[in-house]
């Protein structure tokens, strides 16, 4: 497969890369470049070169997963490129081909799919109060813990309609609406993406010695959620 050709089938790639003159204006204000060993200018240069080998390296590596998709790069680019959109096209292709499991950061996609993905399809929200399990979210602090433990009362107090019928914040999305979202995922390839993430992750998990164990590789999910080899940031 010609990877570059595959990328050009994504409108975001067409929109994201016109031509790059390597000025570095994107890297200059990139929050990821300040933290990680990451340089959006180099990403643009690599895909622009159409060097299949280097594109494959990107698809299999950690680098493309460092971007935070804040899109600050697009405001400044003197050639009208959006490195953030190039990244989105690369990440889609990496998942399509199963290459994402080759890197520590890429493997994390399963953890995101398991929480955010399933929330979207089955609950109609990206995030939910019950996701904010204190052990996984220590940054939410004592107030976060208090909200988590008393969520029915707290949300009621501030006028939300947590899991209730009708309008309002955190309402239960009616089943008919959820059925429509489900069909949208079927029709538009949303489940295709989910299935690929699950499929390739399973293969990777097995090869790393994790087993399904009747709980859908939850040890693997825990591992990818917390594992950090400490080699990603700028030295």
């Amino acid at each position: 497969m010609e990877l570059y050709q595959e990328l050009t089938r994504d409108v975001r790639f067409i929109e994201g890369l016109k031509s790059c003159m390597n000025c570095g204006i994107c890297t200059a204000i990139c929050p990821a470049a300040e933290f990680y060993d990451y340089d959006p200018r180099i990403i643009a240069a690599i895909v622009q070169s159409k060097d299949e080998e280097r594109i494959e390296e990107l698809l299999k590596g950690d680098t493309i997963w460092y971007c935070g998709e804040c899109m600050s790069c697009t405001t400044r680019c003197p050639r009208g490129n959006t490195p953030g959109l190039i990244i989105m096209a690369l990440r889609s292709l990496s998942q399509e081909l199963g290459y994402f499991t080759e890197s520590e950061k890429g493997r994390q996609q399963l953890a995101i799919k398991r929480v955010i993905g399933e929330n979207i399809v089955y609950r109609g929200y990206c995030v939910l109060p019950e996701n904010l399990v204190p052990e996984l979210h220590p940054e939410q602090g004592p107030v976060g813990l208090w909200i988590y433990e008393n969520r029915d009362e707290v949300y009621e107090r501030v006028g939300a309609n947590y899991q209730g019928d009708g309008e309002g914040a955190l309402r239960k999305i009616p089943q008919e609406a959820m059925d429509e979202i489900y069909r949208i995922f079927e029709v538009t390839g949303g489940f295709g993406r989910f299935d690929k993430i699950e499929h390739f992750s399973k293969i990777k998990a097995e090869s790393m010695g994790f087993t399904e164990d009747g709980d859908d590789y939850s040890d693997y999910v825990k591992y990818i959620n917390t594992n950090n080899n400490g080699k990603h940031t700028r030295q």
Partner: protein
Amino acid sequence: MYREGKIQVWQDYQKEIADNHYFYVRSCIRQNFFPGSEQTFLKIVRTELGKDIVENPHHTTCSGIGYHADIVPFDTIQTIVARQFALMTEAGYHNLAISCITSFGIYNEIIETWKEFPSELEKVRNCLKRATGREFEVPLNVAHAGDIIYKFRENIAARKKFSLINQHTGKPLKIVEHIGCHYSKMFPSKGVGGAEFPYVLAGMIESWGGEVIDYPERRHCCGFGFRQYLVMSNRGYSVSNSRKKFESMEPYKPDAIVSNCPGCPMFMDRWQYVIEEMEGKTYGENGQGIPVLTYEELAGLVLGYNPWDMGMQMHQTNVEPLLDKMGIHYDPDLKYAGKDGKLIGKPMMTGCGC
């Protein structure tokens, strides 16, 4: 710094904001962390401004967090967004009022994509029809909810009970504004004041008596970064970017931070706590943090709303220093009470700065 120069920029980016009859779409993050802000928004628009705004319980997430964490394909999010448009069309509305900045960016990105690649629009129409039988019109006006508060900021000022003035010194409160990246960085003309000197929050702060703080890292991202926060082992990215902003704003001694984004105020609130826990460092006065507010909370305080009705007890960083400066009376005993004053326990530790 010359204000005249900024005024010039603001004048260059005047966006059209619909005057009435809004179809409201909610934000996932805000419903979780600032549900009171969305309630406050509806209350202000309906009762203070007398405008017509509706929501439909059948609307869902736009799936934006999933999209920007790359687990949701572009076709899927486009069709989910088209479904929201269909609900709006069916209700007979044309003006979208969006609670979330991520959604706002996505709606704009998708509408612009349809303009540039009409084949995408056709594809989405077909997908939506096949999946749901629905049809839709593209909204005539796309406003962020904050744009609407901005548009009517003087009406709010006219009804204000409190000003953004320090009651002890008589001086304007110094307020940092933080604009969500997806508000205008992608499409500067879609945001009030553009991308470099957005005026949407600055305008509110000034109209309500405060002073806007412009500090070097003002434009920098709060550090959400979608997957950079969602995945536990990536959160160093998130806190380090927020920290950069705190360090940069610290010399100006801000009295509060206000944001128009769902995630940013939550992160800037929680990361202050984390930094205090990790390093013992606080950025506000007297070992306190800097209170972080949504623009609705700020508007609500100005209008004299009870901070606990608005959900300000859900902040990790205490808001009381700001309430005290504004001269707002509040009952500390009721801060963590449930509905009708029911006692439901308190956070284990709230005495610290954050």
